[in-house]
């Protein structure tokens, strides 16, 4: 049990800087998810906390102690690897017990801890098996068991679910969440899957190109994305982005073809009369009667998913393409017209150049 502090952490491989200064204070018992596309440096950041990568600049502190120069073993962290890294020639029991044996723990205590962890993870009947005789989900659990028995200060997860099939992934996600609630050990979890991030994390660190672009609770990241990148990355299907212009009085925003959408309040003076990117999530559109029309959509094609229906279409001129997501089944014909409304609070504005959020 410990807090983890990152203070302006940077990492360079040779002359190439891949992490450009990340700071974050992770509280004791918190579940932090580092989310980002491939190659954004999220695994590198995790490995720096683990001690597997040297820290080029800044400080990492675990439980108040700066660990920059401390070996991974001394940091008292446990890590679940993407490919689980189980020792192939050891059975499940020995895989879990190995870290304890190295530390010279008494045999009875090792046995007690391993059996306890195996009980939590429902692995008791597999203790004698070798990893290759286990299914993907069971291997995954062994990898977690290996961490649990250590009773470390911090759990580190490096995309642990990416090798599982979709159904198992959902199940393991729940188990990880339950485990965290029971054990309350500070956890750092790396993923590129936004559903995992939203469901598991107390807070998210959204990374892009070696920078933490937003740190906040999942809901905060979803409802108030700090940049256009975050807005596009979180949410599926991705947010619609339209070129727009904020009116001179700051009360409404015009999409290219003179369609006006009202803003929640008068915008601050610095974002009046200027170009902006308007972002609307597909799920925030509502189909309305022709009377209160704000947007006229011409349907291109429809994907019926059962619970939802995705509608792809254009607004006015061909330039503005939209994806909208409606609950339930709708069978719109191509080139049919739809009248749409968007609650004013669901509109996002971003700077067209640097992509930062413009708060209205």
């Amino acid at each position, binding site marked *: 049990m410990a807090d983890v502090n990152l203070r302006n952490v940077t990492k360079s491989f040779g002359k190439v800087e891949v992490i450009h200064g990340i700071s974050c204070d992770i509280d004791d018992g918190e579940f932090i998810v580092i989310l980002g596309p491939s190659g954004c440096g999220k695994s590198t950041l995790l490995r720096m906390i683990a001690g*597997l990568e040297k820290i080029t600049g800044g400080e990492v502190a675990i439980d108040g102690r700066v660990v920059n120069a401390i070996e991974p073993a001394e940091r008292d962290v446990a*890590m679940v*690897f993407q490919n*689980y890294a189980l*020792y*192939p020639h050891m059975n499940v029991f020995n895989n879990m017990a190995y870290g304890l044996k*190295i530390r010279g723990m008494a045999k009875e205590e090792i046995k007690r801890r391993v059996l306890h962890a195996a009980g939590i993870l429902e692995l008791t009947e597999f203790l004698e098996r070798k990893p290759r005789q286990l299914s993907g989900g069971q291997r995954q659990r062994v990898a977690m068991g290996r961490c649990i028995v*250590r009773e470390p200060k911090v759990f580190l997860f490096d995309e642990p679910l990416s090798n599982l099939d979709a159904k198992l992934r959902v199940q393991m996600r729940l188990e990880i969440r339950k485990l965290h609630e029971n054990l309350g050990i500070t956890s750092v979890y790396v993923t590129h899957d936004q559903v995992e991030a939203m469901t598991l994390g107390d807070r998210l660190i959204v990374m892009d190109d070696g920078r933490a672009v937003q740190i906040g609770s999942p809901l905060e990241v979803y409802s108030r994305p700090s940049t256009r990148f975050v807005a596009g990355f979180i949410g599926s299907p991705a947010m619609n982005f339209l070129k727009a212009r904020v009116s001179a009085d700051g009360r409404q925003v015009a999409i290219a073809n003179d369609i006006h959408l009202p803003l929640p309040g008068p915008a601050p003076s610095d974002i009046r009369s200027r170009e902006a990117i308007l972002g609307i999530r597909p799920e925030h559109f509502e189909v309305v009667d022709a009377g209160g029309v704000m947007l006229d959509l011409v349907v291109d094609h429809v994907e019926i998913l059962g619970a939802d229906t995705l509608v792809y279409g254009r607004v006015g001129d061909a330039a503005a393409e939209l994806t909208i997501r409606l609950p339930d089944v709708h069978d719109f014909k191509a080139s049919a017209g739809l009248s749409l409304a968007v609650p004013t609070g669901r509109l996002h504005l971003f700077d067209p150049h640097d992509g930062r959020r413009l708060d209205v």
Partner: protein
Amino acid sequence: MVESRPWLTFLTHAILIAGVVVIAFPIYVTFVASTHTLEDITTAFPYLPGDQLIANYTKALTLGPRDVGATVGTMMINSLIMALGITFGKISISLLAAFAIVYFRFRFRMFFFWMIFITLMLPVEVRILPTYEVAADLKLLDSYPGLILPLIASATATFLFRQFFLIVPDELCESVRIDGGGPLRFFWDILLPMSRTSIAALFVILFIYGWNQYLWPLLITSDEGYYTLLIGIKRMLDVGEGQAEWHIIMAATMLAMIPPVLIVICMQKQFVRGMTETEK
């Protein structure tokens, strides 16, 4: 490719049987010769094994041939010590060398690797004079270390283990680091058990290599107490004007075949597995 054509089956079997006969016939002749008295085989060569099997082999093992001064038993033990020494030495040294090359980042790492690799091109015969000089200066002539040490470095085995270590996932090493183990612990607890099939395969190859060493032991042993079996057999033939003791020589030859054959038979399964599969 499974085809059912009778003449093809016949042909393939005929070729195989012919091959077996060509290889097995000399061994059969050797065996037959080792079971008769010298007079029997030097007058008219018999077709069937005789009744002198136990007598000839006992004589070879305990008394030894004339003029050599060591029994076949002693020479077999010498050969065994040399072969096992070379095998274990080569395996342990190349394992450690490959471990160093793959897992440690030290200056001139690749340079050393290529140096080792280049020595693949130099057979023992090429470097035999300088090696002899070194062995002589170190007073290794007529000793077991002298038989073993100069042959102990193996570029082939180092290369083989390097290739194997390269496909072991890095995460295993990292996992051990997080679990609190140092490099040697990783080597001993993880890498070594994982490479055991490769080690078994190499063991077979290297044992036979060591057992069949001829030129080097011939050069550095002059004391009969250190003769290896293959040298012993050669010496038995150098009888000048006299009559070679063919029945004893053939018995010694048969005995020389036994250890490699045993090794191959016992380790056949591991050998094949080591050559074909890698446990991951």
